[in-house]
């Protein structure tokens, strides 16, 4: 009975979404205030029914209701409660429900926090969001209903995939979806602006904080996925250029471009048309990612062809959303006029180059991801596109981007003096190089050209970001006033840019100086890597709540002194019975020690994987900096003032920001 309530609530949510899409949009077109006013309550209504629906599915998981097919497929009575709850989004149907629920949350958030928006705008924005909800709710109800019954009920469930029984994967999908779906807000604002023809900078101003929030969640989501792959897959890799990863990386790249472009549009009134296009693209790529992951096309083009129901639906939906929005853009876009003027040496041109490079980088990832699919679908043979391709193509596009990241923020809007700037930056570059040499030498006791090059780039980004902050603070004569009056958004930008540099350092050192050994170890035998001694002290049995494990004991010492004892496991889950490697890691700011069990060999010996990974943690620390930077930017005073409904005239604000440059 309870699951039927969930199903029914899902249908009601669809009805709400239908009304939310149709009535306010018609109202906006005809100037009917009453219909426009329906947008907000309908959005809340939709969210309410989605919460009910999601709650009933969660309840079915908690009470082990194996008469629900989805629960029987993705859970088991022996699964710990926490994982039973996270198993709600562990499979296809449930993760779509989570997608829809988060879409509801974003719609309600827009309804709540946009009190100052003109009625017609909010009606259009929520209307477009309703249209997107319809697509996903219909998809679920027609092809992927999580409430389908299993008759007769299964005696027990088939259990959640052991790989997903982990904190990283509990948090990864919600974060990722917050990002994906969050871009729908910018998309809807852009579409509303195109519909109404009011293509001034106002829509950019409104969508900026929303886009930044979506971006920071997407950043965290991708980072969590990478962290999870690092410790859970047991290979110590943190990025595989897997099509699933690429699907989330593409919207991130365009989203990053969008954040920068929105800033130019809001502050300078230029790049308007381009920003609209980016807003449409960022969400379209989120949908494309969902399509790639959810249609099964990645597993095999042929699987898609034999069971095409889901794939065809998403493909059609994709075509409607992307085709529709681009058609609208082609129709209205030419009316957009940008007024800003700028010269070659100006912050605008650098941000333009930033945008273009990010979009090209995204296109390169897209080409590499789709090319084998297209070739296979056309019957032209099967090829594999993997890490060697992406690092060849992607990294060269990133290098100029990183270099310009050091210059961009220092440059003035409209026009800067190239000679003065160059003199200035020459010193910073020299300084960065010297620091990089010292840093690399201290960190690795080696100097190689490639490593030195990327570390110099990283230090260059940090030093010019800090120099920029220092200059901003010094605008005021008094240091304290300077620190206080510098907008939070400025600190946010600085922190996010430093985050990129930290990430670059982590990637460089971890790729260049990791030591990886796969060795046979007898009991009591020792191996030395990276200055550490690993001693294998044998195997013990371990019993988990729903698995059996062989647990190795490895004692690590450094020049005789004990460092830690690691206990990696080789697990066999009772229901799904495939062996799982649970690596044991001793984390550190400057190095990780990573041990994973291989296979048992003769006479108590095991094959064991021992890794020494310098600076690998900096990769994720960098992404945390980036996300925090985003959070600071959203927490900026002008947005809080907007929420408090204090009247800050646009003009004053713009004057304030003009001083930023």
């Amino acid at each position: 009975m309870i699951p039927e309530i969930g199903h029914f609530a899902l249908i009601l949510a669809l009805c709400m979404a239908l009304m939310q899409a149709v009535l306010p949009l018609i109202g906006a077109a005809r100037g009917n205030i009453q219909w426009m006013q329906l947008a907000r309550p309908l959005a809340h209504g939709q969210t309410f029914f989605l919460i009910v629906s999601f709650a009933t599915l969660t309840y079915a998981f908690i009470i082990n209701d194996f008469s629900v097919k989805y629960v029987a497929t993705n859970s088991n009575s022996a699964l710990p409660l926490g994982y039973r709850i996270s198993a709600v989004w562990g499979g296809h149907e449930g993760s779509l429900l989570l997608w829809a629920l988060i879409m509801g949350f974003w719609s309600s958030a827009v309804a709540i926090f946009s009190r100052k928006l003109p009625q017609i705008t909010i009606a259009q924005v929520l209307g477009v969001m309703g249209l997107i909800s319809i697509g996903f709710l219909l998809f679920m109800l027609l092809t992927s209903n999580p409430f389908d019954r299993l008759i007769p009920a299964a005696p027990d469930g088939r259990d959640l995939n052991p790989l997903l029984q982990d904190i990283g994967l509990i948090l990864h999908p919600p974060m990722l979806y917050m990002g994906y779906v969050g871009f729908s807000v910018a998309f809807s604002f852009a579409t509303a602006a195109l519909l109404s023809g009011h293509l001034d900078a106002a829509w950019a101003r409104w969508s900026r904080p929303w886009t930044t929030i979506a971006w920071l969640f997407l950043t965290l989501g991708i980072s969590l996925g990478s962290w999870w792959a690092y410790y859970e897959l047991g290979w110590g890799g943190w990025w595989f250029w897997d099509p699933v990863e690429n699907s989330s990386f593409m919207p991130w790249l365009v989203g990053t471009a969008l954040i920068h472009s929105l800033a130019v549009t809001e502050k300078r009134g230029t790049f308007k048309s381009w920003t609209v296009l980016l807003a449409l693209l960022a969400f379209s790529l989120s949908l494309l990612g969902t399509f790639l992951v959810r249609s099964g096309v990645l597993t095999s083009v042929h699987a898609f062809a034999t069971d095409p129901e889901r794939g065809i639906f998403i493909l059609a939906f994709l075509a409607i959303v992307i085709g529709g929005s681009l058609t609208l853009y082609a129709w209205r876009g030419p009316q957009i006029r940008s007024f800003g003027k700028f010269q070659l040496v100006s912050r605008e041109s650098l941000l333009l180059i930033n945008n273009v490079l990010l979009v090209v980088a995204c296109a390169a990832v897209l080409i590499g991801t789709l090319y084998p699919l297209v070739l296979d679908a056309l019957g032209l043979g099967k090829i594999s596109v993997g890490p060697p391709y992406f690092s060849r193509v992607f990294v060269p596009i990133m290098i100029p981007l990183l270099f310009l990241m050091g210059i961009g923020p220092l440059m003035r809007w409209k026009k800067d003096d190239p000679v003065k700037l160059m003199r200035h930056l020459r010193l910073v570059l020299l300084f960065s190089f010297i620091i990089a040499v010292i840093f690399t030498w201290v960190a690795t006791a080696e100097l190689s050209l490639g490593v030195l090059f990327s570390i110099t780039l990283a230090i260059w980004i940090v030093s010019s970001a800090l120099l920029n902050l220092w200059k901003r603070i010094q605008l005021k004569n008094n240091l304290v006033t300077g620190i206080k009056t510098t907008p939070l958004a400025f600190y946010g930008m600085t922190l996010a840019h430093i985050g990129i540099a930290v990430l670059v350092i982590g990637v460089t050192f971890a790729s260049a100086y990791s030591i990886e050994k796969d060795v046979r170890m007898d009991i009591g035998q020792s191996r030395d890597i990276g200055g550490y001694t690993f001693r294998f002290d044998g195997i013990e049995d371990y019993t988990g709540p729903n698995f059996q494990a062989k647990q190795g004991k490895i004692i690590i010492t450094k020049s005789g002194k004990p460092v830690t004892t690691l206990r990696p496991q080789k697990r066999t889950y009772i229901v799904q019975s495939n062996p799982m490697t649970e690596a044991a890691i001793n984390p550190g700011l400057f190095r990780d020690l990573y041990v994973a069990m291989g296979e048992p060999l003769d006479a108590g010996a095991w094959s064991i994987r021992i890794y020494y990974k310098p600076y690998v943690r900096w990769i994720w620390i960098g992404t945390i900096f980036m996300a925090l930077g985003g959070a600071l930017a959203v927490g900026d005073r002008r947005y809080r003032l907007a929420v408090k409904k204090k009247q800050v005239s646009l003009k004053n604000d713009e004057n304030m920001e003009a001083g930023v440059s």
Partner: protein
Amino acid sequence: MSANELLKYFFISFALLLSLGLLTQKNATAAAVDPLVFTDAKKEARFKNLIGQLRCLVCQNQSIADSNAELAQDLRKEVYDMIIAGKSDQEVIDYLVARYGNFILYRPPLNAQTFLLWFLPGILVILALFFVIGIIKKRGRQAQKVTLDNKAEDRLNKLIGPKF
């Protein structure tokens, strides 16, 4: 420094950066747990690099370095044997491609089918640069026009007094 000179400067440094990026790449590879013993560090490095670039044909997008599948283990052993026997990287690759087809290579070979795959990103970079230059030139012209207009206005102001 004129805008044109700067543009040239920018192009040269851009090209330099690009080529530096192409030259200084390392392929990070993870290795699987086989106690395959190497006496020669160079051979070991080549082995690790190779197995990171070969696809495990029965897995869902894993290299043979990252897979526990039996096929991956066999392939690793095969690559190991060939390297120990003194075969070059290219010989190993040729042998595997002859047996399993190009699907096994994570770095697809350049041929008629993959021409676009390899060159499209580069073409896009070039198009993007032209796009950027076009926009900057257009905006720059507008800016100059405005400064002229301002000068003209100043002259007008002098001639007929400031407007209110």
